[in-house]
């Protein structure tokens, strides 16, 4: 029986009993009161994180399917003579590889699930990386969201581990060589490297242990970790309320958007099905990792033109670019040719990436809460830094495919490698300068638009014979997006000596900080002020015709006839 707690609005009788059941046990009315109509702003780039989340759900679902048919064992068996594919019949292989073949060929929907799982993994990491770039480009990592950024960063790292461990499971020639490279990298670590290699493989490579171990990590430990991080990440998104892009009516003190129920239940819920659907179509139609073409792992075999999954390609590229430096110090070997590209460079990259919000705070001394995002052009130095790092990343991706570039374009492999070595250092500098200029150019374009309005394509002739194009001024809502930014100013510090000529303590430190702040903020294009706009309207005889009044134009036209 439903208890009538209070007079007031009544819920639809069809769900009243359920609602009452849940409320009296879970207090669901309180939850709904807090969250049900919570507002979320709308923007396509907010979907990137959702793609990552939904791919992760698809990964868990398809992975559960695979777990039931995959055997994580390195015991050697001979593939049955009646099982497909024909090329593998009677071949010696591990049970892991045999079960991968079996689930691909003789489990209905098995191959689809494998392909769905692999594509979801690629899209999962891809969506995370692009989501992270969106966060960086728009400044969404700023106070109060630094810690949530860090959680997202940890998810990226754990996802890379998930990819690495999952890729190794089928025990085919490619994945085996991937593990072999991992072994080579681990061995290069000073002092503990050899022991770490033994720790990973339970002895020497390949041993009998690595696949069961990777399996345990891949299906239990790592997804559990990611799931926990996802929960905290999403909780904090709710807790902080979502950021919003600049727009009329939007401030750091409000959220403008649509309510969770029903708009986002339908939109975000629907988007889950769209992501699942597209991944499904990919799994159905795009074959991936056909392990029977590579064959079971044999430490003497390797495939030419083999590339790892895309998110490991930069490591592969960095290994390929490094010259063969190896030194022996006091009888101990230091493989700089492996240590630098596979440990030091990714270590640096990830440290800077993870610490960026804190570096930003340190440099800018920015203490305010930010909920309205930056348009990337309005933070030129930051945008340029991100593009510069990205360009180096792309060089490494290219280097990871240098053999394919060489064979497809009939170029010398050595020349390509040398070109990439040089590009790795030169391109980021060029990218930084160019991006910064492009940002300033776009900001000036915004000013131009505000001051002179949209081109209408209508050319009129004055009585004097002069021609001019009619411009359509922006309305106040469109204009706000272009003039609303509050650009940070470079740090002002006190002079080195006070009025009495005594040196102030801590001045050098402040000077350093000021230099950094100038690097970020000194060169700037200020948004148009109301005074400038008025002046432009008043003076710009042919630039800004008073086009708001079509009447004036008619007059002009009339006069010109």
């Amino acid at each position, binding site marked *: 029986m439903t208890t009538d707690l209070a007079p007031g609005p009544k819920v639809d009788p069809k769900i009243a009993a359920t609602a009452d059941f849940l409320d009296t046990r879970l207090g669901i009315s309180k939850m709904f009161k807090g969250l049900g109509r919570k507002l979320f702003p709308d923007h396509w780039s907010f979907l990137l994180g959702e793609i990552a989340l939904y791919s992760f759900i698809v990964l868990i679902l398809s992975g559960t399917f695979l777990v039931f048919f995959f055997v994580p064992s390195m015991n050697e068996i001979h593939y049955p003579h009646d099982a497909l594919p024909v090329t593998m019949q009677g071949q010696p292989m591990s049970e892991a590889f045999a079960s991968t073949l079996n689930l691909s060929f003789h489990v209905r929907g098995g191959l689809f699930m494998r392909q769905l799982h692999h594509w979801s993994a690629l899209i999962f990491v891809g969506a995370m990386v692009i989501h992270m770039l969106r966060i960086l480009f728009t400044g969404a990592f700023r106070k109060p969201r630094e810690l949530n950024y860090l959680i997202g960063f940890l998810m990226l790292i754990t996802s890379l581990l998930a990819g690495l461990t999952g890729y190794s499971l089928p025990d085919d020639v490619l994945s085996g060589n991937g593990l072999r490279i991992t072994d080579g990298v681990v061995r290069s670590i000073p002092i503990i490297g050899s022991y770490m290699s033994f720790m990973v493989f339970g002895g020497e490579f390949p041993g009998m242990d690595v696949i069961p171990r990777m399996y345990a990590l891949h299906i239990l430990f790592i997804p559990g970790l990611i799931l926990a991080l996802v929960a905290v990440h999403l909780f904090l998104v709710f807790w902080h309320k979502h950021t919003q892009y600049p727009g009329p009516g939007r401030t750091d003190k409000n959220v403008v958007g*649509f309510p969770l129920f029903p708009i986002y239940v339908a939109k975000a819920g629907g988007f889950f099905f769209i992501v699942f659907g597209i991944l499904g179509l990919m799994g159905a139609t795009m074959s991936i990792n056909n392990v029977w073409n590579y064959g079971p792992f044999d430490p003497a075999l390797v495939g030419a033109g083999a590339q790892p999954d895309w998110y490991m390609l930069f490591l592969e590229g960095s290994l390929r670019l490094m010259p063969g430096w190896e030194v022996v110090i006091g009888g101990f070997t230091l493989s700089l040719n492996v240590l630098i590209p596979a440990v030091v460079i990714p270590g640096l990259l990830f440290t800077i990436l993870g610490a960026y919000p804190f570096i930003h705070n340190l440099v800018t001394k920015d203490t305010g809460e930010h909920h309205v995002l930056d348009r990337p052009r309005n933070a030129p130095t930051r945008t340029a830094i991100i593009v510069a790092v990205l360009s180096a990343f792309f060089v490494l991706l290219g280097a990871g495919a240098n053999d394919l570039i060489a064979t497809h374009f009939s170029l010398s492999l050595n020349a390509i490698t040398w070109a990439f070595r040089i590009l790795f250092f030169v391109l980021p500098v060029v990218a930084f300068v160019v991006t910064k200029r492009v940002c300033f150019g776009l900001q000036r374009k915004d000013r131009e638009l505000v001051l002179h309005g949209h081109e209408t394509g209508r050319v009129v002739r004055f009585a004097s014979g002069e021609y001019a194009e009619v411009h359509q001024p922006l309305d106040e809502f469109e204009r706000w997006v272009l003039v609303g930014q509050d650009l940070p100013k470079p740090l002002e510090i006190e002079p080195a000596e006070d009025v009495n000529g005594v040196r102030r303590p801590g001045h050098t430190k402040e000077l350093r900080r000021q230099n950094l702040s100038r690097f970020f903020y000194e060169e700037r294009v200020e948004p148009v002020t109301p005074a400038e706009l008025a002046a432009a309207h008043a003076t710009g005889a042919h630039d800004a015709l008073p086009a708001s009044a079509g009447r004036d134009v008619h007059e002009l036209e009339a006069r010109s006839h």
Partner: protein
Amino acid sequence: MSIEQSDHSTELTEHPATFPNPGLPPHRPRLGDEDPKAAKRSERLVLLLFTVSVLASIAAIVGYFAIPVDPETGSVGNTRLSTLIIGLGLGLGMLGIGTAAIHWAKSLMNDHDKVEERHEIAGDAETRSTAIEMFNDGAKDTDIARRPLIKGALGGALALAPLPFLVPLIGNLGGDWDISRFKRTAWAPAANGDRIYLATDPTNRRIKASDVTIGSLFHVMPWNLPEHPNYLDEKAKAVVLLVRVDPQDLKETEERASWSYDGIVAYSKICTHVGCPVALYERETHHLLCPCHQSTFDVTDEAKVVFGPAGRALPQLPIDVDENGYLVAQRDFDEPVGPSFWERER
């Protein structure tokens, strides 16, 4: 911007420093907001998309039952078709729901922007002082300030407590931890002094020196290695590439002059960079190329690195022939094979 030129000086006097935020723009009605027919069309489209989803899901289930993939009746074609139908059915089934829900939300549900106030993340002064008070009360209850020894003891105990878990965990992971195994391969002569024959990989046939013609490349492993209990571990270290070149092309130091036989040289197949098999041989240039990271080694010059990230030459296996003309290893490699490691030179 030349503001001075303006003769409308009155307009210039009182401008604010920045533009004011104009507030929410007026709502722009959608087609369906004004035209009931358009709304009806949207509704029909939503219904159609849900129907597509239903049909696709049914098709996937039919495909599951209709196409056998078991070893007796299955074929590669069946597997392919089954994958396609189940996948397309599932994919379209999901896409139908997703597109229908989003079209519904975008074209038919209320799309008036709403505004909600944010509150500062930090608690207000009152909340903060209450929290501090509560914390201080709690801390006082523990009496820890007056008994600092407890703090130290707690820290010490907590620091040590994970070790009984971690030490056995990590201690067991490395097996026997005998890293000196990196330095030995299956080419070492047997206990009774028998030398190890070179055999083809994977057919395990011994190789006569006379079989090795100039320019040919043999993939080699120790004879009868497949019977070894740790076959793959040993194979991962012991595989060798055997090449015969014109003895005049061979640049050999005096020390290694006896390591080859009539232009036949044997080098470790495991790359000294990170351990991929160096599988490609270019007969014209006598270069061995690792397909993983393109380290290139010169067979005629003691397999020294010509290009790429490898830091060292491929180790050479000293070979000989027995009385019947079969190739045999004189002894194990003089140095560890494969990627470098910290204790390599020790």
